């Protein structure tokens, strides 16, 4: 309560001798079925200043970005541009009003060229009202030069890697005459040099008098470029102010709402014999020469920058894609895994990163999702037995403390964290030996996250081996017994738990320090 009003006052107070805000949001609320993503949110952006928006996963940051850019309509509240109320019914109207964004997910067109991706929706026209490709190409080159991206504007996007795609998204945001530029985790997929170039770009935009909203989980960069900050927690704004007035610890405290140590309750478990050994796994384009071992009761962390190829490697290990080379041993026995069904047969299961596409079958009930890979056990001679299915589903969902009104509810109606629990329950129900969790807490709320983490340690203690792919350093540091770092499809480093620092992980992932 008090926090709220304090924060509100901070937003509304103009900076010392500063100008009026270009853009001001007040009382913004937005709900999705089962989730209240934003509630009574205030935000002000000032010309020539960078405002950092911070908050945990699922705090509602991206939702706010989508409201600002006309993709979602707020349920409540108002948006003012230069003091005048505005509405953004479509993405185009926001662009035309001078609000542009680099979205968190790259939302671009794989089959169109770079030029086209940059200008689609607001292409320059010639005097006959037809598209002016010459001008588009010239301008595209100019913008790409400006952000230091060495990308041929005529190639199709499919041919680019994730970092280049991200640069194209940035170029797209800069292709309109914008007054407000929103950047939702723009550095997440970039390498260090590209990040430096982006910082310079932000400085130039500031100098041009643009108002910038910068969303990031990395505190070093927030302190490097932001002038102001706003903290979200669970869809509400909890604090705003000047960066100069605060410390990192204070921001973290405000963000999470309690002390950080309690999040990762990794318990020590006895680490047993080797259960999985991978030797020389390679793929023509995705990864090369991956070798490691995993022991009983161990949690093995896989760290890397986004796009390092961890997910791809895990999927190959799970039999989704075919490796070109390499062997797998389970226990002492060499096995060939050619399909997920075989992997499951060998006791290896994979909780995918892309929950919506690869994990949950959203329109189907919880019970059918959970029992899918275990149908062989719940059925008799190929015929379904509903009672057995419900029993199995209940056993595992209750253990994970799933919040649902009934087991025959469609999974799609659940909140993200609960969907993730269903997916995890699905795999635990197969009683695996090795579980691969790919970004297990991505996009799920604080509470569920803690529950997932607690459960992971419990499983490890029971003798299950866990591979945890994560891009969150605290999660990696908190949960892993051992950490492997991947970079550009290769193993970059391997660290034991003791003495591991965020520094070491970042260096290995970005390719500066050469460890192990």
């Amino acid at each position, binding site marked *: 309560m008090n926090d709220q009003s304090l924060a509100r006052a901070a937003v509304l107070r103009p900076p010392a001798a500063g100008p009026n805000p270009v853009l001001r949001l007040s009382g913004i609320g937005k709900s999705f079925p089962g989730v209240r993503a934003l509630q009574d949110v205030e935000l002000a952006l000032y010309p020539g200043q960078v405002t950092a928006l911070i908050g945990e996963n699922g705090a509602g940051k991206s939702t706010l970005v989508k409201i600002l850019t006309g*993709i979602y309509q707020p349920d409540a509240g108002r948006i003012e541009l230069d003091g005048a109320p505005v509405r953004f019914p479509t*993405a185009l109207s926001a662009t035309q009003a001078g609000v542009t964004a680099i979205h968190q997910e790259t*939302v671009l*067109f794989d*089959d169109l060229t770079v030029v086209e991706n940059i200008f689609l929706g607001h292409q320059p026209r010639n005097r006959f009202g*037809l*598209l002016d490709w010459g001008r588009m190409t010239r301008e595209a080159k100019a913008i790409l030069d400006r952000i230091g991206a060495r990308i041929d504007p005529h190639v199709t996007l499919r041919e680019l890697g994730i970092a280049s795609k991200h640069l194209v998204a940035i170029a797209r945001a800069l292709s309109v005459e914008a007054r407000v530029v929103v950047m939702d985790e723009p550095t997440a997929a970039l390498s260090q040099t590209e990040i430096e170039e982006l910082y310079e770009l932000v400085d130039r935009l500031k100098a041009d008098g643009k108002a910038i909203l910068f969303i990031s989980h990395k505190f070093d960069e927030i302190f490097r470029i932001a002038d102001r900050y706003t903290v979200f927690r669970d869809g509400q704004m909890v604090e705003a102010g000047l960066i100069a007035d605060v410390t990192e610890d204070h921001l973290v405290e405000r963000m999470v709402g309690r002390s950080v140590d309690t999040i990762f309750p990794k318990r020590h478990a006895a680490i047993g014999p080797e259960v999985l050994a991978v030797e020389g796994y390679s793929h023509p*384009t*995705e*990864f090369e020469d991956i070798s490691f071992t995993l022991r009983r009761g161990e949690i093995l962390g896989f760290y890397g920058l986004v796009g390092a190829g961890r997910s791809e490697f895990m999927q190959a290990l799970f039999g989704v894609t075919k490796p070109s080379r390499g062997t797998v041993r389970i226990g002492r026995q060499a096995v060939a895994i050619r399909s997920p069904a075989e992997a499951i047969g060998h006791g290896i299961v994979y909780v995918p990163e892309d929950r919506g596409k690869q994990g949950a079958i959203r329109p189907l009930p919880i019970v059918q999702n959970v029992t899918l890979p275990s149908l062989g056990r719940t059925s008799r001679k190929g015929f379904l037995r509903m009672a057995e299915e419900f029993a199995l589903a209940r056993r595992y969902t209750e253990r994970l403390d799933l919040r649902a009104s009934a087991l025959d509810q469609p999974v799609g109606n659940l909140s993200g964290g609960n969907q993730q629990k269903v997916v995890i329950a699905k795999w635990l129900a197969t009683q695996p030996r090795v579980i691969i969790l790919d970004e297990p807490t991505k996009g799920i709320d604080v509470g569920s996250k803690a529950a997932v983490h607690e459960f992971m340690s419990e499983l490890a203690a029971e003798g299950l081996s866990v591979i945890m792919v994560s891009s969150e350093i605290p999660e990696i540091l908190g949960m892993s017994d051992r950490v492997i770092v991947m970079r550009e499809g290769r193993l970059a480093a391997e660290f034991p738990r003791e003495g591991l620092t965020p520094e070491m992980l970042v260096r290995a992932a970005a390719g500066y320090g050469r460890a192990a």
Partner: protein
Amino acid sequence: MSTFLKSREAMLALALVALVALVESRFRGFAAPGNLAAVFNDTSVLMILALGQMLVIMTKCIDLSVAANLALTGMTVALVNAAAPGVPVVALIALAVGLGLLLGAFNGLLVWLLDIPPIVVTLGTLTIYRGVVFVISGGEWINSFEMSPAFTALPRMVILGLPVLSWIALLVVLLVAVLVRLTPLGRAILAVGGNAHAAVYTGISVGFTRFMAFVISGGLAGLCGYLWVSRYAVAYTDVAVGFELDVVAACVIGGVSIAGGIGTVGGAVLGALFLGVIKNALPVAGISPFWQLAISGAAIIVAVALNARAERTKGRIILKSAEHAA
């Protein structure tokens, strides 16, 4: 990719030339300019419809009602012409196109506003439109002697060595090429089919774009309604029955991806010509007409198989060493 797309069309063009050469090698005169022009003329209607269908398919929809639309507009203008021979042909063409647009808009609205899957919508309107033909004509034929001379003369009038029908087809090819390449709508059509989710982020209305594709396809079908009826100088309920599948086939052979987002005007034109050449060559080559169906079926399968091979999604390129090799 773009060079690759070009090579796919080049491949198709090559196949077409090879086919013509094959027929010519056994039957002198097939490749004579005059005959090729005749084949082109004969394929005009298919080509126009294929271009409209291409736009629809590129938005990840399908329009199965084009042939029924053609029949209905054709019958309507024939009836008007028979009842009032004084109405100028230009007005009738406008009527045909206008009615076609309307029928296309009906499909488009159901897809846009009610979000009914396009295949269901056009499956329904396919039967409805053709039923209406039967109802308005009472099942009767409109024969050439009931049509005014101007009505039937236009498509076969020769200008600069080519019949007007061919010129109309060429004009449509040009217009659709301009639409796709040089207008925001054209690019929106490609974008919507390529990634509807991302299209929303770029401020493109997915529903409206699909609606427009249906409208254009309907308008072109309406135009073909007039062309067909005047060219064959007869209108009846079963005009062009089943032709929608030929139209889809022409698109598919031309490399238009049924999954949306991929397709070129050149491809669709070549696809239509490919079918046109086969249809015209069989009687000339003295191959029993009973073979025609099987041959075009096999051609469709081979064409999609080739396209599918080309389109197959490869893994992401992460390894630096693989980046340049790809």
